[in-house]
Each structure stands twice: as structure tokens, then as C-alpha cells.
């Protein structure tokens, strides 16, 4: 700018000198002054030119210095948005330099404000995204990652946030890419390599072409749906069988069999057995619903594990003898837990009874207990055929049976383990099942140790 001004100034000085020459011509002519030569005229002209030029250059230098100061101050402000350009308070309001400084300050202030607002937005967005249980993946038009929240990182098994990297390098689920290609909002349920069942939803396009994928882990939900569906199917099946027998026997009796001395006792026995069975199932269901509703009152006291186990064993001794199963107990005398004695007895009878029922004839059942940190771990092991993996995970569900025909024959209601689980959990314990080596199963429960007196 200054260069242009300088050129203009030279031109202006030249014009002024020309004007001076013309004016002096007139003056010389009018006053009849004789100049000795044209040389003097040239000298005068040059002097005028020189004075005009010098005055102009001084003016430019002054303006330039002020502008330079403004430029430097502006650079400082650009580097540190908290600084401001100093304003000359003595300068008049309409001074261009002052006005310019004020506008620079205004812009700087505005920029700081927008910066702060943007930073806040960003923190807010990432806080919201990180806090979500759902996985959030945002990609740009080139399917490069813009955002990957904690849940999504966990689902895809990545530790860093690979912003700017292509999504395909971290997720190759075919359905997800089909969704990204789709024009509208859509969803699909897939199995991630981590094994999670995941519902992937794609939101509509954001910005120019980017898209947002939402990943929701539905593993538990799907499992619960299966449990519920199976429960309804099982409960109706379990109830229908005895009812059908009762109805058939009663009809046969009414039709005349009641007078048949051979048939009648058999039919009546069938009636009785199935009525008992129904009653057992209903009692168990009632227990379960009470436990579910938290109406099952347990009174926690200090229980000596060995003494209680021996008491429970009396309930199953006959059965063990009938199948010639050897029972071995290995529990330290002094071991005590914080539990409800009646509930713990019910649990132990149930688990030991199962072990005796499902181990091989002339098999072996071990009941052992030991201290496990702040808990006591009680184990009931058998050397039977064991339980397949796919059954083991579902064993504690209501009416779930690994081998339906066999367990019904054995007289179970299908609710025992589910009641055990509820009771143990009500007493702040845990229960589970593992394969026993070399064969059989180990059912274990952990209950809190009673505080030492």
C-alpha cells in the first residue's frame, strides 16, 4: 500500500512542480521580471519538487510507523487471543488508525468468544458420547472415522481413537457397510467378532456426506427373550403333563374303572402322584415368585457349615444308599458363614440331591468347603457324565433341563436350581457350575464369612 502511496506522491510532487513552473511563468510575465536564464527556472522547479516530495515522504513515514505498530499489535493478538491492540486515547474518534484498532479488538473478542463456545460444545459432545452405553461411530464421506466413543472402542476392541483412519481397518462387518451405503436411516442386527449381538443403526447423513452409526449391545436382551419364551413354553408343558394324566385317570375311573379291582388302585395312585407333582411345582413357583418380589424373609445368623451339612445329608442318605453313591465330606470344623440356616439347608439338600441323582450308579459325591477371601466356598462335586457347555450356562433358568426325559423321570420340578440361585443371591452370595476334572460337574457357592466374634 505504502509503495502505491509513494508512487502517487512522486506523481503529485511532479504535478505540483509543473504547476509551479506554469504559475511562475505567469508571474514572471506579469511582473516583467527577467530571469537570467531558463536554468534558473529549472532550479526553482527542482526546489519546489524537492520540498513537496520531502514533505510527502515525512507524512508517509509517520503514517507508516503508526500502521507498523498496529500490524505488530495485531500479530500479537493473533498469537494470543487474550491480548488487545492498545488504543491511543488522545486520538480523535474518527482517526482511522484508532477505528481500525477498535475493530481488530472487536474481532479478537468475538473470536475468543466463539472459540470458547466451540471448545465447550466439543467437550460437551465428547462427554455425552463417552458416557453413552451405546457405541457411537461417526464417519465422514470417505468413511474415515470422525468420532469413536468408549463403548464403540470396547465393542470393536480398539484402544485408541483412530480419528481420520478408514473405518474398514477397524470394523469389517458387512451389514454395517451396507447400512452406510443406504440413503435413509436403517438398522441391522449382527454378531460382532467379539461375540456380542449388536443392533447397528445408521442415522441420516450429517454435514455434507458423513454418517453416524449407533451400536447397541442386545446380547443380554436376546438371551432374556429366549429365557422368557422358554419359560412360558416350559411352564405350560410342565403343568399340562400332570393335568392330562389326572384328567385321563379321572375320566377312566368315572367311565367305570372305579369298580375294577385291578385298574382302580393303579389309576388312583396315578391321580395321587400327579396331584403331588402339581402341588410341588406350584409350591416351587410360589417360592420363586416370593423370592422375586423380595417377600421371602431370610434371617441371617452365624451358621456352622459342617454341622449344617451333616444335617442336610440325613435328608439324602436314603437316596444315596439306593444308588450306592459314596458321599465324602471335607469341611473344617470351625468354618462359619453368615446365612439363613433353613435356606442354606434347602440349598445344600437340593445340590447334593442333584449330584446323587445325576452321577453314575456307584459313583462318588464330594462336599467340601474352604475359606475364599471374605467368603466361604462350598463345593459339591460328582464324577458323573458332566454337563455340556451349552447347557451349563442356562442351567439356573426356570424349567431349563439339560436332558428333559431323564430329569423328569428323576422327579425334579425343573425349578430347584433356579430357587437355589435366588436364595444364594438373597444372602449376598454367588452360585455357579464348572466342569469337574477328569469328569462330572462341580456346583459351587460362595457365601460371606460370618464376622469373627
Amino acid at each position: 500500500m505504502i509503495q502505491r502511496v509513494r508512487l502517487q506522491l512522486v506523481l503529485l510532487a511532479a504535478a505540483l512542480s509543473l504547476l509551479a513552473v506554469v504559475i511562475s511563468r505567469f508571474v514572471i510575465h506579469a511582473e516583467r521580471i527577467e530571469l537570467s536564464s531558463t536554468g534558473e527556472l529549472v532550479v526553482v522547479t527542482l526546489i519546489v519538487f524537492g520540498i513537496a516530495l520531502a514533505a510527502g515522504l515525512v507524512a508517509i513515514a509517520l503514517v507508516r510507523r503508526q500502521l507498523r505498530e498496529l500490524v505488530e499489535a495485531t500479530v500479537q493478538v493473533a498469537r494470543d487471543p487474550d491480548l488487545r491492540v492498545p488504543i491511543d486515547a488522545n486520538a480523535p474518534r474518527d482517526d482511522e488508525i484508532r477505528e481500525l484498532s477498535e475493530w481488530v479488538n472487536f474481532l479478537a473478542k468475538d473470536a475468543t468468544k466463539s472459540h470458547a463456545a466451540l471448545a465447550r460444545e466439543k467437550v460437551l459432545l465428547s462427554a455425552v458420547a463417552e458416557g453413552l452405553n451405546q457405541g457411537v461411530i461417526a464417519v465422514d464421506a470417505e468413511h474415515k472415522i470422525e468420532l469413536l466413543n468408549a463403548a464403540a472402542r470396547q465393542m470393536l476392541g480398539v484402544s485408541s481413537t483412530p480419528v481420520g483412519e478408514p473405518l474398514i481397518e477397524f470394523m469389517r462387518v458387512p451389514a454395517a457397510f451396507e447400512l452406510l451405503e443406504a440413503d435413509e436411516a436403517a438398522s441391522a442386527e449382527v454378531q460382532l467378532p467379539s461375540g456380542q449381538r449388536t443392533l447397528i443403526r445408521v442415522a441420516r447423513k450429517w454435514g455434507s456426506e458423513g454418517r453416524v452409526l449407533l451400536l447397541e449391545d442386545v446380547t443380554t436382551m436376546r438371551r432374556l427373550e429366549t429365557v422368557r419364551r422358554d419359560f412360558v413354553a416350559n411352564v405350560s408343558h410342565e403343568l399340562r403333563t400332570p393335568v392330562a394324566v389326572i384328567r385321563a385317570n379321572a375320566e377312566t375311573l368315572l367311565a367305570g374303572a372305579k369298580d375294577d379291582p385291578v385298574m382302580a388302585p393303579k389309576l388312583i395312585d396315578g391321580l395321587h402322584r400327579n396331584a403331588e407333582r402339581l402341588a410341588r411345582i406350584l409350591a416351587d413357583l410360589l417360592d420363586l415368585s416370593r423370592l422375586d418380589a423380595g417377600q421371602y424373609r431370610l434371617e441371617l445368623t452365624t451358621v456352622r457349615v459342617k454341622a449344617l451339612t451333616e444335617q442336610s445329608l440325613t435328608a439324602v442318605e436314603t437316596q444315596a444308599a439306593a444308588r450306592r453313591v459314596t458321599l465324602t465330606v471335607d469341611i473344617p470344623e470351625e468354618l462359619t458363614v453368615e446365612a439363613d440356616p433353613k435356606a442354606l439347608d434347602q440349598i445344600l439338600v437340593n445340590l447334593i440331591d442333584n449330584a446323587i441323582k445325576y452321577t453314575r450308579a456307584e459313583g462318588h459325591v464330594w462336599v467340601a468347603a474352604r475359606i475364599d477371601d471374605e467368603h466361604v466356598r462350598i463345593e459339591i462335586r460328582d464324577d458323573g457324565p458332566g454337563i455340556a457347555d451349552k447347557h451349563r450356562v442356562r442351567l439356573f433358568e426356570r424349567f431349563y433341563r439339560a436332558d428333559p426325559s431323564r430329569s423328569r423321570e428323576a422327579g425334579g420340578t425343573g425349578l430347584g436350581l433356579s430357587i437355589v440361585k435366588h436364595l444364594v443371591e438373597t444372602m449376598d452370595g454367588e452360585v455357579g457350575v464348572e466342569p469337574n476334572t477328569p469328569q462330572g460337574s462341580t456346583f459351587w457357592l460362595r457365601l460371606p464369612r460370618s464376622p469373627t466374634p
Partner: protein
Amino acid sequence: MTAHTSKDFEQELRTLRERLATMGTRAEEQISLAMKALTERDDELARHVIKTDQVIDRDENDIDELALQILATRQPVASDLRFITMSLKFVVDVERIGDLATGIAKRALELNRLPPLESRVDLVRLAALAQKNLHAALDAFVKKDADAATAVIAADVEIDKLNASLFAELIAHVATDPATVTRVLPLTSVCRYLERIGDHTKNLAEEVVYMVRATDVRHRNIPIPPN
């Protein structure tokens, strides 16, 4: 080339890359589902695998068409050209892997009609190895990692070794109890399918090395016959 068409070209290459990777993943899933159908004796799952193979076949056609279209309209050169020619081979191998997975599912259907074999031959381990290798090959492909691809090529030896020992084990079964032959034969097929999956995976890895390094590593250890 104008900025606009160059952007379109980039997008076509990206789509091609994604389609190849997801097709590979589908084949990977097919292997694991087929093996699940076999070990859990699940007919429904086996039929699902057989049906899903159509999707992989469709993928092959789509990808072929896309690659040819890029070749015809963009006249790519250098690494782009290598990538596209590589993708034409890649789909063939992945499609074959899909077919082999379907083969496993078909054998599962046959075996499910027969009583289970007493001692289980460890086919699951062979399948896990084959799957791990395929997964690594696909990782190498998307990350353009020639070193990882070279490792996949080397790992194929393990699959071959395990295959040989499992095969011998299966034959021993028939030798001790000839009545098991109807159940052992389908299992030997599964064994062979898994070994073939390993070979196709090795091909995929070689193609990745070619794409990244522009060097052909196929048939490296075959001696050149003297003239």
C-alpha cells in the same frame, strides 16, 4: 483429470476395498457357523450356511463388475492398477473359501443323521487355525501390511502339518473300527476343506504382498527346471 472425476475415482476404489474386506469377513463367518453346525449337530444352522453362500456368490459378481468398470472407465496405472487386478483374483479365492464352508455345512448335515463318533478328532483346532489365518490375511489387506501378509503365508505350514496328523488319526479310526467308515469319511472331507481354505488364504496373502510391494511371491519355492 478434473478434480471431480478424481474424487469419484477415489470413491470407487474405496468402495471396492470395502466390498472385498466385507466379502472376506462373510466367508470368515461362514466357516465359523459351519463348524458350529458340525460340532453342535445343528441342522438348521447348516442349512443357513448353505443358503448364505448365495450372498458370497453375489458379492463375487458385484465386485467383478465394479473392478471391470473401474478398469474400463478410469484406465488406472501403477498401484491402483495392481490393486484392481489383485481384487479380480481376491474375489475368486474368497468365493472358493465360501464354497468350502458350504461343503463343511453339507457334511455336517450328513453326519447329523449318524450317531456321533466316540472320540472327537480335533477338527475344531484346525478350523480355528484356518480362521485365524484368514482373519490375519484380511487384516493385512485392509491395513496394506505386507509384513503381516508374509507372516500369513508362513503360517500355512502349521495348517498343513495339523491337517496331515488329523488325517492320519481319522484313518486310524477306520483301521481299528471299520464300522465307523461312514462317519469318518465326511470328517476327512471336512479336514481337506479346511486345508484348502488355508491354501486360498495363503493365495490372498500373496495377493496382498503383490498389491503393496509390487513383487510376485507366488510359487517361490518351486525350483526352475534346467533347460
